[in-house]
Structure formats: structure tokens, C-alpha cells
């Protein structure tokens, strides 16, 4: 079964490669961005890299047409790509060009009788569905890290016409250090149960004592702006799998819970004994985080 990995400006394709290997057969990488990215991917275990030299210093999105045409020419059964924002644009162009269905939140994929069988979450994770398709099909996944394991395969250069009319005027660098929550062992997530911004100081103190990263539910990153976007956990935010997930004042709305279902242990603190998150926790405490957080800090300090 021929598979294609689409990579736009990032060599982080580990999970895509693992999924492609499940299917077996030839795996071709269609890559845009700096040559260094293409070179890194050429040593990841793919069978061939197709790269556009003209893509080296343009926005990933300006390469969508080239990516769609290149993938169509290769005619793979399955196309894998990252859920990262710019790369979703590439995958959408591929899906449109191939008329292929596109699936996200895929938990299982296998080749069966010349078809692809895959299981994916429905409606943000309230149910799951298994489907069979002869392909072509596009799968968007959390792509993972880069993986350099092998000696390189050739990089085939395929010229690109950059989409016209797009000019990068200015880049404003990140004002904060970006955090990668997907690698965190312990995460304290804060929700609307946190009533004032002042309470965050106590939560930071608790995080320090537990050697945990602080994260949040969507309203705190978007409505309230208390957190940067890379700390927001949920269906359209980060998907994490720490050893400990301590949810403080998060009721357990589906769109949030889905982002942390991979956690080994979930501890939930909420004032509402009927909060839905208690049904999906390992340990639960009914209480106000305004009281419980200082109590946890005090207990940890004295032990």
C-alpha cells in the first residue's frame, strides 16, 4: 500500500511514520520548507523525499497547490499529515484535489483486503467509528517529534510555482518561551473554577512543588487571556498524556476532557459534586480550589 507523508516546514513526523509503517508498503514524503528539513526527513526511514527548492523561504501555506499536485501525481492510498495549523492547510488542499475523505483523531489504522480500515473519534470524542475505504484517504494526526534513525534516502527535487499574491510583511516573535505540554510528566490544569487571576500564584506554587506544568481549559486562554495558547488543553488545543493530570475547577466539558484522556492518573477538584469530570477521574475532591490549593501547598511544604 503506497503512503505519503506531507510535511510543511517541520521534520516532526514520528507518529505519521509509525502509522504509515502499520500499513506497510512504500512511504513517500512530500516536503516543503528549508532543505535542512528535507534532509532530516530523508534520514527518518521514509523511502523517498520529494522537495521543492523554491519552498525554502516561503510560507508553508503558499506551497499548498504544489503539495496537492505532487501528492495527486504519486497517487498514494493514504496521505498522512500533521494537525499543526499551517500543515492542515496543505492537507485540506490534498483532500480537495483527491476528493478524499479526511479523518482526525484516528486511534487505529490497518490494511485489510486491499482496503484501509481506520478507527476515529466522532464528534470530538463522544463516540468512535470504524470505517473501511479503498482510498485515497487523508489522515491528520498529532505528528510527534522528528526521528533521525537511518542513513538518508535521495531527495528528489520537484520545482514549484509559489502561489502568487502572498507577502510576509512582518514576523513578530513569541513574547514567551513556548512550552511543550505533550512531554510533561505532571500537569495541573486550571478551569473556570479559578475565579481570580490572583489565585494563579498559588497554583504556580503548587506546580513548582509537584514539578508540574500549568495548563488550562479553553476559556482561560481565549476568553480571559490568562494563559498563552500553547497551554490550552482540549479538542482543538493540546492533547496530552502525562503521568498525573490534576484538573482544578474544570467541570469536565467533553471538548476539554478529550485533550487529557491519555493521562495515566486523573485527579479532579471541583466545587460541584455533579461535575461530569468526576465520572472520568481516578481521585476526586469536592471543594473549592481557592481553599484546596493553599492546603495542598501547605501540606506538601510540611512533608
Amino acid at each position, binding site marked *: 500500500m503506497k503512503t505519503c507523508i506531507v510535511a510543511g516546514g517541520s521534520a516532526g513526523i514520528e507518529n505519521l511514520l509509525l502509522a504509515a509503517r502499520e500499513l506497510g508498503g512504500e512511504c513517500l514524503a512530500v516536503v516543503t520548507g528549508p532543505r535542512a528539513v528535507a534532509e532530516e526527513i530523508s534520514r527518518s526511514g521514509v523511502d523517498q523525499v520529494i522537495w521543492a527548492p523554491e519552498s525554502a523561504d516561503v510560507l508553508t501555506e503558499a506551497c499548498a497547490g504544489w503539495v496537492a499536485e505532487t501528492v495527486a501525481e504519486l497517487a498514494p492510498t493514504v496521505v498522512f499529515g500533521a494537525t499543526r495549523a499551517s500543515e492542515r492547510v496543505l492537507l485540506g488542499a490534498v483532500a480537495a484535489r483527491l476528493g478524499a475523505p479526511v479523518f482526525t483523531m484516528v486511534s487505529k489504522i490497518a490494511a485489510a483486503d486491499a482496503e484501509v480500515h481506520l478507527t476515529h473519534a466522532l464528534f470530538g470524542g463522544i463516540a468512535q467509528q470504524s470505517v473501511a475505504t479503498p482510498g485515497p484517504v487523508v489522515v491528520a494526526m498529532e505528528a510527534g517529534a522528528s526521528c533521525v534513525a537511518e542513513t538518508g534516502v535521495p531527495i528528489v527535487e520537484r520545482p514549484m510555482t509559489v502561489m502568487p499574491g502572498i507577502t510576509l510583511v512582518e514576523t513578530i516573535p513569541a513574547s514567551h518561551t513556548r512550552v511543550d505540554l505533550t512531554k510533561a510528566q505532571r500537569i495541573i490544569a486550571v478551569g473556570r473554577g479559578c475565579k481570580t487571576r490572583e489565585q494563579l500564584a498559588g497554583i504556580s506554587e503548587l506546580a513548582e512543588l509537584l514539578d508540574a506544568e500549568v495548563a488550562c481549559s479553553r476559556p482561560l486562554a481565549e476568553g480571559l487571556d490568562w494563559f498563552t495558547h500553547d497551554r490550552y488543553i482540549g479538542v482543538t488545543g493540546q492533547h496530552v498524556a502525562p503521568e498525573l493530570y490534576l484538573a482544578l475547577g474544570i467541570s469536565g466539558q467533553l471538548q476539554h476532557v478529550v485533550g487529557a484522556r491519555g493521562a495515566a492518573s486523573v485527579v479532579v477538584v471541583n466545587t460541584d459534586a455533579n461535575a461530569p469530570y468526576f465520572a*472520568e477521574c481516578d481521585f476526586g475532591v469536592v471543594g473549592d480550589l481557592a481553599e484546596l490549593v493553599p492546603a495542598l501547598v501547605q501540606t506538601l511544604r510540611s512533608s
Partner: protein
Amino acid sequence: MKIVIAYKWAPNPQDASVGADGTVDWSRTKDAISDYDPQAFELGRVLADACGAELIGLSLGGPNVASPMAKKAALARGLDRLVTIADDQLSWATTTQTGLLLAQAIEQIGGVELVLCGDSSVDTGAQLVPAVIAGALGWPAFTDVTALSGQPGELLVQRVHAGGSQLIKLTVPAVLAVAADATKPRIPGMKDILAAGKKPAEALPLDQLDTTRLATSRVLNTARPQLRSRRQEMVAGPDALAAAAALLARLRTERVL
């Protein structure tokens, strides 16, 4: 000059219940304009006012999409007019189907120079429809857009990128997904709702669009999500300090800490 707001009329899965076999019961849910779409309406209205463009709503889905309530909800958010593609066959249309059909509708509307969408849909959340629309039209797409200025044909787009942001100038038609925190959408008032009833709304029949170009998949089964089994152990104490101590003790015993 025309600006299209492509939005979704959908229920929130949070309110649905799921049977043992994974069938989703939507009977207790209510359809609404998808959570993250009002930001697109708001940015679109402000831009349309600034450059004298016509703001056209476009939505696709089951028959509900063209219900009087649905049309009023959309038109009250500042649209000049509305185009709906409502058909039984489009209830739960797939991401690719939705994107390809919306692209065709945008071509039929004609003269569209900008398409704005929300960040993601409340029910599916794949965040891919804008990219499919753009792919089908051969236009560029950008996501996480936080601000717009200028006018279509000479548009300045600010978008979140790598923790910081980028300012991009577009001189071609484009599809943009507006970030959920881009702006604070106005809540329609009584005047808006009353005016909505008088605004033009057009139904675009599905048979005027090409529905053939789509690879198929067949459903093998549905199921409840396979969740890790959790202990659901409640820890309590006479006061916060006692509860905190009890919780930490349990976490240590179970080697979570």
C-alpha cells in the same frame, strides 16, 4: 466586492447522549451557530463596513440549516444576505464534502474575494473545512487569524504563528479561519433580530452542485469511546487541609506521586 462568512449550524456534542453501541442521540440537543463562528461574523462585518463590501452568509447541512430560526440567527449577526444549501443528504456531511460543496457555492455566488470561517466546528472540530474550500478554489488559506485591515485585493492579515504572530499581505482572494479570541462578537439585539427577518435569504438546491467527486468510505461499526477505566475514588476531609492531606496520602500510596 463580496465577503462570504462560511458558518456551521450544529448541535453541541456535549448535550448528546451516546448509547452502548455508540449511536449518538441528538434529540435533547439544540442547533446553534457553531461556537467559534461569531468571531468570523464580527471581523467580516467590521471589514465589510470599512471597505463597502457586501457580507454574505453561507451554510450547508441538513434541512435545519434553512429553518426560520437558523436563518434569523445568522442574519441577525450582521449579514447583508444569506445563501443556504439544506438537504437531507447533507446532514452530517463529511469535512471534504462540506469543503468541496461550499467552494462550488462560492463560485456560483460569483465575485467573492474573501471567505471567513470560524476556528473549528463545535460538533466535528476537525479544523479542516477552510483548507478544503481553499484547496478546491485554488486560493491560499490561513488559520488563527486575529486581525484584518485594508480591503480584499489589498488585505493585511495578522495571524498567530509559532507563539508570536505574522503580518501577511494578500493581493489575491483567500480563505481565512478566524482565531477564537480574535474579537469579541456583538450579541444581536432586538433591532438586529427584527431586521434579520427582512433580509434576503436564498436556498441553493443541492442538485445544482456536483456531488460526484468524492472517494467513499463505509462505516464498519460505531462504539462508545474506549476509555481507560478510572477509579472514581472520592477523597474528603472535615476541612480543606484534611482533604489535601488525604488526597496526597492516597496519591503516594498508589504511587502516583
